[in-house]
């Protein structure tokens, strides 16, 4: 038995164990994590769901979008509007059951994506990116002005989620204990986040390996070739936008639940850019990469800020020196540049190459990334061997 086969058989038996252990850890996390980590984790999971949508759009369908935050906002505000109740200050709500409202919000985000399809179906690459940039500004304008819907500049509250009488808040049932640990709003929402993230991950992985997923890849690589193969290019491009917007909508619902109150500023240009950064760092087109990138980009500023008192090189916000927000901006600006220039395929590409190097045995060196995993916004120059 050669060392390569040994490694392979070890990998094969270890893999399910790692998976089970990971799931158990994720399920047990609220038992020991404090409020800060739970909340940060929730934000990261919400971002991960949205980022998966964006990686499908940019990576798989090859449509650059700078307007992802707009669709996240539609999901978040859609949920708040559908589930919320009308209040005295002119903010309206329909008061639907929260679960129905969450579905409605996802559908609303998808509809917004479909409404954008006359533009998204016609434009390509950077042209689409610029048009979607306009969407962010348009979105900000609507969020600040459509006060009955959005509460304007000060935002509006998100109604807590409620499933068959079990409320994902601090009450109803109040004083709920699991293994002696009090389960409040964050602990309960944690599982909602896990379920949504797992669902998003699983459906996206399946889509990438399905017939429509491959059709999208063909549209990305050559619209002419795709058209010649009988793929309805315009329809597929629009569908990709709708689908990615629905992921964004679900991410938005989670964001609204995690924040408890949403304001327009959370859905501006910087949020859109952050989503792009997530998928670039993770490796464009990779679902796992999008999740990893989402955790990195979301947690970095929060963690730096949380521990800024203990990091000697950071100064408090607002002063002359480098504060936590500034440092995380630097880190992720640098990360984009370095990943795009040197680490082809981002985090996912790096791991894949490492795995390939480990696995490589005599007579089995044709181990190249499959079409599903290949980074799509790739260089046309001959830097890389064509696969």
């Amino acid at each position, binding site marked *: 038995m050669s060392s390569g086969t040994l490694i392979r058989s070890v990998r094969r038996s270890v893999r399910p164990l790692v998976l089970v252990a990971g799931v158990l850890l994720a399920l047990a996390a609220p038992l020991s994590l404090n409020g800060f980590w739970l909340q940060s984790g929730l934000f990261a999971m919400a971002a991960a769901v949205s980022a998966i949508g964006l990686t499908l759009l940019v990576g798989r369908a090859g449509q650059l979008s700078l307007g992802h935050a707009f669709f996240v906002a539609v999901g978040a505000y859609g949920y708040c509007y559908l589930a919320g109740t009308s209040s005295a200050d002119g903010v309206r709500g329909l008061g639907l059951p929260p679960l129905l409202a969450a579905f409605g919000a996802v559908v609303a985000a998808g509809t917004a994506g479909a409404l954008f399809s006359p533009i998204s179906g016609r434009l390509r690459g950077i042209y689409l990116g610029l048009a979607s940039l306009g969407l962010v500004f348009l979105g900000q304008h609507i969020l600040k002005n459509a006060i009955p819907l959005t509460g304007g500049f000060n935002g509006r509250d998100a109604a807590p989620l409620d499933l068959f009488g079990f409320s994902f808040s601090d009450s109803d049932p109040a004083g709920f204990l699991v293994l002696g640990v009090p389960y409040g709003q964050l602990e309960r929402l944690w599982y909602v986040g896990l379920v949504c993230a797992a669902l998003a991950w699983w459906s996206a992985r399946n889509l990438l390996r399905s017939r429509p997923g491959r059709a999208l890849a063909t549209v990305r690589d050559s619209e*002419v070739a795709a058209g010649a193969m009988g793929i309805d290019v315009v329809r597929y491009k629009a569908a990709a936008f709708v689908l990615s917007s629905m992921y964004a909508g679900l991410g938005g619902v989670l964001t609204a639940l995690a924040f408890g109150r949403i304001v327009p500023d959370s859905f501006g240009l910087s949020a859109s850019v952050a989503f792009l950064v997530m998928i670039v760092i993770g490796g464009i087109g990779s679902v796992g990469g999008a999740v990893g990138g989402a955790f990195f980009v979301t947690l970095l500023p929060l963690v730096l800020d949380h521990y800024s008192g203990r990091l000697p090189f950071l100064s408090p916000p607002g002063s002359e020196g480098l504060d936590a927000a500034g440092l995380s901006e630097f880190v992720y600006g640098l990360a*984009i540049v370095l990943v795009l220039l040197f680490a082809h395929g981002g985090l996912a590409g790096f791991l894949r190459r490492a795995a390939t190097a480990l696995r490589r045995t005599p007579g089995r060196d044709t181990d190249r990334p499959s079409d599903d995993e290949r980074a799509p916004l790739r260089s046309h120059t001959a830097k890389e061997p064509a696969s």
Partner: protein
Amino acid sequence: MNEFLGFLVNGLSLGAIYALIALGFVMIFKATSVMNFAHGSIVLLGAYVVGRTHDEVGFWWAALLGILAAAAAAALVDLIVLRHARGADLGTLAILTIGVDTLLSTELTREMGTAILDAGAPWGTSTVHLGGTSVPLSRLVAALVAVVVVAVLWAVFRFTHWGVRMRAAAEDGTTAALMGIRLGRVAAGAWAIAGVLAALAGVFLTSFPSPGISPAAGVTALAAVPAWVLGGFDSFPGAVVGGLVIGVVTALSAGYQEHLLFLGRDLAQVAPYAVMFLVLLVRPSGLFGSKEFARV
């Protein structure tokens, strides 16, 4: 009527500033096929250097320093970062410039802190009465400078060797390289010129009537993106026309704000993008842009 004329003149002069920025976008796009999201930061850098130095060396030297700094920064972005990603996908390049922009604007924001610097231009806050309406002098100077810059650019492209090289490289890079044109130099030169235009725009964008030099100027510079898209991505006349249209639209939607309240407050900030959507719906490659053809 007078009111309308006033808005129009103001809009045209604001449009001249947008045109300067949009020309920079076109320049960079033609030479290196990059949509430069770091342009806002370069605009800001030019304005910041002017704001920082004008107390010590006087406005004119400060303006020269600002222009040089912005030109150098733009050329360096090309040389250090983008040169290593030549031929990559448009999307990759765009995201790369977003990364550069994040770095640059974070550093500039940190340098500036919360203080709002003044551009210190000699025309200050004075206004000029023109046909019954008043226009800030700075805007008139901006329009004049824009006209001169456009004329100079045109002449450079038309009559100098450098201009011919630049046009050849934009037309067909490979053939130009075979003819002995150094694409690297042409590209860096184009970025530097875009930097010069950005710095000029930055100075006017932050003079009266705007409050001064703050990180927000980088975002204001993004309003030139609709101008660029509107005119077509690779057309110099398009950039000028687009800039003027966006300037006028902005000024009119700000001026008639009270009549347009049903569309929400601060309409002027989104009106450019709304116009951009409309144009893209009808003409996906802008007003003057060259069309992409695909035969199936």
